[in-house]
């Protein structure tokens, strides 16, 4: 059974598009990356799954339960870290965390302290006195303290310094190793690449691709870089070549198809340098966005 099962989910805000006909599934124990530029519909999707907003059409199920009817029950086992965290300003960190913990059936005190220590959180300060990064830390502890089975992370690293980012990723990996499923939304591909097993790419409200991160990198595209004297760029105008760029004596392009076609071309040329490599996710991603 999928942990998250979304089918034909559509959300319009009046006439404005939120997401259109989005379908995907997330399996138990995986880290699913959800990438797309700002305004593509990432947060809309998450808010639908958390039943903060209701779908225009389509359905979404989490743990096999419908999000519009069983929201409270589903949310018992969900942790959420929004891109920007807002809490009751007048409260102290410790009181807010205790308040949050009071909504769950089991005792979260121990874990709350362990997490706070890991994230170096000062528990006795007032929320209103905290910096952006420190509020984010409160968010991380609050989102994890009840040992959720499913985590929603929406642009989670914004505002965290590099050291804290690393600690945060370690924390997420630890959680994942314990069997926690993670839904990781981001527009920073590096972090998705580091953490996720599978990715869904969303663009203008629609899913354009869902695939294994490895297949996304390997199966399709090669990045080819050729340097040679008197190189004629038009010679590489083969079927399967995209993004052909020339730069003083070297040619760069992406190639999809049988790599032997390129090798044959190269065979007749005297090259000074040649590299054929996996494109980064970033480059693949840009490709989807053109």
């Amino acid at each position, binding site marked *: 059974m999928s942990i998250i099962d979304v089918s034909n989910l559509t959300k319009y*805000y009046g006439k404005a598009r939120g997401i259109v006909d989005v379908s995907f599934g997330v399996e138990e124990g995986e880290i699913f990356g959800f990438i797309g530029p700002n305004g593509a519909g990432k947060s809309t999707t998450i*808010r639908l799954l*958390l039943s*903060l*907003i*209701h779908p225009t059409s389509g359905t979404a199920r989490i743990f096999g339960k419908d999000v519009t009817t069983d*929201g*409270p*029950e589903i*949310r*018992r086992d*969900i942790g*959420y870290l*929004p891109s*920007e*965290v*807002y*809490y*009751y*300003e*007048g409260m102290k960190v410790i009181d807010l965390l205790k*308040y*949050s913990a*009071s*909504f*769950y059936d089991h005792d979260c005190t121990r874990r709350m302290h362990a997490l706070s220590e890991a994230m170096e959180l000062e528990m006795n300060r007032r929320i209103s006195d905290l910096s952006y990064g420190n509020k984010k830390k409160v968010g991380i502890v*609050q989102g994890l303290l009840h040992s959720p089975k499913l985590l929603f992370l929406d642009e989670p690293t914004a505002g965290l310094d590099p050291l804290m980012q690393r600690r945060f990723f370690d924390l997420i990996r630890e959680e994942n190793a314990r069997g926690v499923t993670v839904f990781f939304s981001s527009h920073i591909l590096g972090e998705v690449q580091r953490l996720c097993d599978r990715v869904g790419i969303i663009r203008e409200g629609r899913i354009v691709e869902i695939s294994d991160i490895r297949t996304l990198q390997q199966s399709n595209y090669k990045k080819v870089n050729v340097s040679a004297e008197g190189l004629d760029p038009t010679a590489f105008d083969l079927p399967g070549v995209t993004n052909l760029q020339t730069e003083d004596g070297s040619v760069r392009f992406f190639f999809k198809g049988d790599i032997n076609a390129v090798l044959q071309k190269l065979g007749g040329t005297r090259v000074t340098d040649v590299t054929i490599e996996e494109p980064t996710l970033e480059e693949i991603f840009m490709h989807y966005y053109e």
Partner: protein
Amino acid sequence: MNIFLRELKANRKSLVIWSVILILLILIAVSKFSAFADNPEMLAILDSMPDVVMDAMSMRAFNLTTVTGFYGLMFIYFGLMGAMAAAMWGSEIISKEERDKTVEFSLVLPVSRSRVITAKASAALANCIAFVLITWGVSLVAVRPYSPDRAFYEFLALEMAAMFLIELIFLAIGLLLGCAMKRYKRSASTAVAIILMTYFMSIFSVMDERLDFLKYATPFRYYDAGELLRRGGMDGVYLLLSLVIVVVCVAAAYVTYNRRDLYI
């Protein structure tokens, strides 16, 4: 229970501010009353005022030289303050979560929206009850120098019950506005606008007989101090109307809040 307690705490400051204003109002008013108390000259001055002014201020129904009559005149201020405070509490307790963007925290907790409304409305209701009790208590202390008779205490109790009912009505209206309005920033100002509108309607409906039908549209006429004093009780029709308003508003609040998208 946790939401209820947190809201009580969060709203304590507002209750204190409203209470201080109310206490000041009572103290100042009662000190002014010392000029009226058992003073027949005052009666003569009042008698010389034009009828319209007397109607508008609803001063005709009362003998202002007695503490009972004076408290009759005071009632509209209690009613207005109670209405304002209750409407603000009712609307803000819901809409502030969207204004401060804390819904992304508070409604991701494993609670249903209905449970959130119930807890928050109860906290606002507790504030309303406290507000009436404070008004009552301070009044009892403030009028002591005039050693009022038993009839005064009975009338005061009736007034306080009426103040509470006015609070209930506007609490329900405020709650509905907070739950239903898309522009959450406007829910409190809309509530105040409704209060002022119904208040002026109550004045006009007294001044001009052709506008008498408006009395059903304004809760301030349901609990008119002059009528309360004359009848020694409340009118069943108005009580029923109040009940209908409260039930309809609260039910509509639950339905709309459960259905609508939260604004983030």
